């Protein structure tokens, strides 16, 4: 059972990471395109600004799952770590369940919001805003899988010492 979950999770989180990287590259290219149009045509195109923001939003919500997988979500772990082992583990599980609860609510309300904005189009681009709002439920669902797997794997060892690998700023 847990093995199936871990296999599923490494696939979903890997997918989330790859897609987030693609959206990050898109964000950079679109922002750079914005600079060029402003210099060449003297007026920035409106669609590229909207798309820059939108691809950043997708990148952020897709990146949540990998961030949980690598233990990179910034948290105050000091209490968890200074408690006796059993109590600390209990708190670790509770904290993860709370995170799952939060992303479940975000997923649920994200679907509702996506549904609500179905008829609104993105200014200057002509597609529905729902395409962008969908980042919330999709990212949240992928994140829930990542948190479940991280919780079963247990406390990341030597937390804090590998901050560079974890990419915490």
């Amino acid at each position, binding site marked *: 059972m847990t093995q199936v979950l871990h296999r599923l999770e490494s696939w979903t989180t890997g997918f989330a*990471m790859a897609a*987030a*990287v693609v959206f*990050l590259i898109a*964000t*950079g290219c679109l*922002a*750079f395109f*914005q*600079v060029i149009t*402003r210099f060449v045509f003297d007026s920035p195109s409106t669609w590229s*600004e909207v798309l*820059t*923001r939108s691809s*950043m*939003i997708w*990148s*952020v*919500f*897709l*990146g*949540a799952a*990998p*961030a*949980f997988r*690598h233990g*990179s*979500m*910034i*948290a*105050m*772990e*000091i*209490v*968890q770590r200074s408690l006796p082992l059993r109590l600390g583990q209990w*708190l*670790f599980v*509770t*904290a993860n369940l*709370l*995170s799952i*609860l*939060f*992303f479940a*609510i*975000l997923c649920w*309300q*994200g679907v*509702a*919001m996506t549904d609500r904005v179905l008829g609104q189009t993105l200014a200057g681009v002509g597609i529905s805003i729902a395409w962008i*709002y969908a980042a*919330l439920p999709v990212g949240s669902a992928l994140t829930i899988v990542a948190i479940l797997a991280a919780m079963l794997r247990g406390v990341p060892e030597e937390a*804090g*010492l590998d*901050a*560079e690998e*974890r*990419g*915490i*700023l």
Partner: protein
Amino acid sequence: MNTAIALSLAILFLAGVPIAVAIGLASIIGIEFQGRLPLLLVAQRMFTGLDSFPLVAIPLFILAGNLMSEGGISARLVDLAKSMVGGIQGGLACTCVLTCMIFASVSGSSVATTFAIGSILIPAMVKHGYPTPMAASIQASSAELGVLIPPSIPLILYGVATETSIGRLFLAGIGPGILIAGALMATVLIMCRLRGLGREDGDDRPPFSRALVRALPALTVPFVIIGGIYSGVFTPTEASAAAVAAALVVGIGIYRELTFANLPRILKRTVISTSAIMLIISAAALFSFLVSRSGLPNEIGRWVGAVFETRISFLLAVNVMLLVVGMFVETSAAILILAPIFAPVAASYGIDPVHFGVIVVVNLALGMITPPLGVNLFAACAVAKIPVERIIPQLLWFVLVVFACLMLVTYVPAIALWPVDALMGPR
């Protein structure tokens, strides 16, 4: 509602729930407690909180910083700084401060600065006979220049949260950054004299002209960023895109240390850092919406106005509050929650919002080198491979020096505002 939010936030923080999630859950509890607001706000506000063009600068500056540190810039900046100040007793410690100051102009984060520079200079200092805790504490305190000297992620956040010009904030960070760098250099020099450390720091020092030529391509990036923003050519977001492009050109084309094989790893690290910080920003937008809707900022404003009669006492109180907050709360969250509440209050005392932003960021930067949540301490100790407890006695002096600088920045507005007024004109 506000009590419910504050209480649940504190409990969630302490339970070790990720900060972004804690802020989001506390907001949801607030919404449920209040009863008349729709839960749909959670998705809507978290979305609109990120849907801003100035915020795009954050992932791109993180990316540019990562590209630069992988692309061979750190080592060349160290050589440049060494050639400038390395010749005197304690020159290596000085080099650390100066390199951090230069690196800060390509990096928006102090933790990134610690890893990029500390991994070179902490071992070098230890090799030259500096005690490891001292080397780590010098690195930890100089790295906070990363958030003061532009580009700076905290200053972008303050600008977005309070609708202050990010370009002006960037320029206002330069003066305090140079002040703190100078004060830290003076401190390490005196320390080295008193303890007889760093007598042979001048060995293996490259000549200035050669170091400068080698570092020149790297220095074009800060030139693009600062020059572009203040001449009005670039918005900060456009500057961040240009910085990424420049970092690619320098790293791949000129230094040839950045290869296409490295890019996936750099991009992945950027995605993770970005999401970790941007989710906090997103949740904080929801939180701030609820707090401002409840009328709390006005209440606080009235209360503060009644208690603190003069600007001087108000600033002192704000500094104390921010120092305490900075010790316990993550920087982005602190800025996004507190700045919208206190910036209007500060304005009512006639304090320039740009000046106030710099005060906030210097305070929180000081929080990065004070336990229990001093991210710079953790980073520097991770690089130096010593437990955090060992660095603390050494650190005290640096904390005091930065605190003295904070007081100067607070009560002498010209340190922050003079470059802004000189280059961009008064508001």
